[in-house]
């Protein structure tokens, strides 16, 4: 205790200083630009001379004829993606953990990480072929089981699930990395002790591996809540079509389309601010809850 006292705080502040200065300049100064959300912004007038219109941009957003459906689509797609994007990588990290052969394990790890590197523009073209109701490989496979061809990309009911599935497929390999890193931090002696107690692999997984991963799982869970209004612009934009607007149009594609007609930075910023505030609230709450119930606060 005495020794602890001697450690002064200032080296810690000093370590933070460069990061704080850069963040101030490149994040906090531009954050002030949020005022655009309250302006009828015109590039020619700039931030300092555009007209102030109070909450009109928010009102415009909320009064859009299909705002509720767009918001619902966004949340529905995003939440499913968050859930699948948590569970699938965890499961695969655990499955990979059971593989003894280092070569096989590394090869699989590397391969499942590939799809992350193909952009949606490229994948879009490939997916139209693979998911085609006439002759696409997926529907051919389903045909073996007597299932009628499904128009995954053109059917309103199926489209959101298609988005979630393909997104999970693209990202799960990359997502696995973080859990694999977490697995390395688990104390090996715990496994030895468990074996001594006669626990089989399944029990070890349940009582050693999972609790050991818990902090990182909670961390990823809390952080991913920040994405509850991010349904993935690139993906939706490259895959959607008028046929599936009713279930596939999300906040970001909507903002994109109004921007095409006329760069409405005011509305775009208002929508962005709306998303930020909701994410922020969710993250704060979940961080508190994680502290209370999982006994592990992240921040």
């Amino acid at each position, binding site marked *: 205790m005495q020794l602890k006292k001697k450690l002064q705080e200032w080296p810690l502040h000093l*370590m933070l200083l460069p990061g704080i200065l850069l963040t101030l300049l*490149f994040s906090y*100064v531009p954050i002030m*630009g949020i005022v655009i959300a309250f302006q009828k912004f015109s590039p020619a007038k700039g931030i300092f001379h555009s007209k102030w219109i109070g909450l009109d941009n928010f009102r415009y957003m909320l009064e859009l004829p299909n705002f509720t459906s767009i918001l619902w689509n966004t949340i529905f797609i995003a939440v499913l993606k968050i859930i699948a994007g948590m569970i699938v990588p965890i499961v*695969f990290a655990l499955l990979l953990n059971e593989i003894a052969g280092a070569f096989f394990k590394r090869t699989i790890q590397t391969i499942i990480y590939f799809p992350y590197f193909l952009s949606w523009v490229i994948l879009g073209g490939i997916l139209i072929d693979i998911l085609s109701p006439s002759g696409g490989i997926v529907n051919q496979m389903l045909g073996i089981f007597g299932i009628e061809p499904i128009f995954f990309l053109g059917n309103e009911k199926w489209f959101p699930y298609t988005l979630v599935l393909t997104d999970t497929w693209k990202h799960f390999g990359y997502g696995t990395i973080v859990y694999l890193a977490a697995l390395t931090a688990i*104390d090996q002696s715990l496994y030895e002790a468990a074996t001594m107690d006669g626990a089989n692999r399944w029990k070890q997984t349940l009582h050693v591996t999972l609790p050991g991963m818990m902090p990182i799982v909670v961390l990823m869970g809390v952080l991913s809540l920040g994405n509850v209004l991010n349904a993935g612009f690139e993906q939706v934009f490259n895959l959607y079509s008028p046929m599936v607007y009713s279930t596939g149009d999300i906040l970001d594609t909507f903002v994109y389309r109004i921007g095409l007609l006329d760069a409405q930075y005011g509305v775009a910023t208002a929508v962005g601010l709306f998303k930020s505030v909701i994410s922020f609230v969710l993250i704060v709450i979940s961080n508190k809850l994680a502290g209370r119930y999982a006994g592990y606060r992240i921040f």
Partner: protein
Amino acid sequence: MHKLTLSRKSFLIFNYILLGLTAFVCILPLINVLAISFSSSTAAAAGFVKLLPVDFTLSSYKYALQKHEFVDGFFVSLKRVGLGYAINMLLSILVAYPLSKEKKALSLRNFYAWFFIITMLFSGGLIPTYMTIKSVHMLDTIWALVLPGAVPVFNVILLMNFFRGLPKEIEEAAYIDGAGYWRVLWKIYVPLSMPAIATITLFTIVTHWNSWFDGLIYMNQPIHYPLQSYLQTIIITTDPSLMSSNELLNTGDVSDRTYKAAQVFLAAFPVLLVYPFLQKYFMKGLVMGSVKG
């Protein structure tokens, strides 16, 4: 070695098959892109190419490697990754370490933490960021690509949590030996956190390598574009309604599909290699082993 029980055996077989199939599904699109890149333009334009090249040719690769935009972009990207990685890594460590301390040790800890987390959620948007970068005269320089994201908050949080998981005893022993925060950080925390550092190394490299939008907006001259910014300009098919009739006449917009595939593959290849290289840091028991030793 223990003898495997039947259930264990069947699980392992199932596991191998499942992982093998999954990997197969994940590698298909890449093979498709690769096959297209080695095919004739007509076969590619007709959509005949699936998993094997049709009318095998190397001409797309010759074309891509001759294009000076491609080669220039490659070197800009290397520079960006090198510089960006150094800055991100240094700042991630320097920020994560103090934040991993309890409030007792660092009185403003919670304030600092939220100071960074807020930037992950709120942003002023494109115009204010552009104006800021312009006002510090960084447009058209590599700094515009590496400094605005100098503190990758997600990575900081990850590293901070990893630091917090390290046993306190080693650290305290070091203090008793007279070490200060700096020495403890570099001599104990960093070496013990190699799996976490390898993880964020990968994330940082991939992020910098894949970013394209900032390059297009903050660079004024095409020779300063990173590779992915340049690629973006060729992969996206221009909305023909934007083009004048003469420009339309100069577009052979299908024949270059093989070139695109070749360039997409060449651009992804280096970063695909990074992961296998880093995998040795994901070895089990690395952390505790070195603690005990």
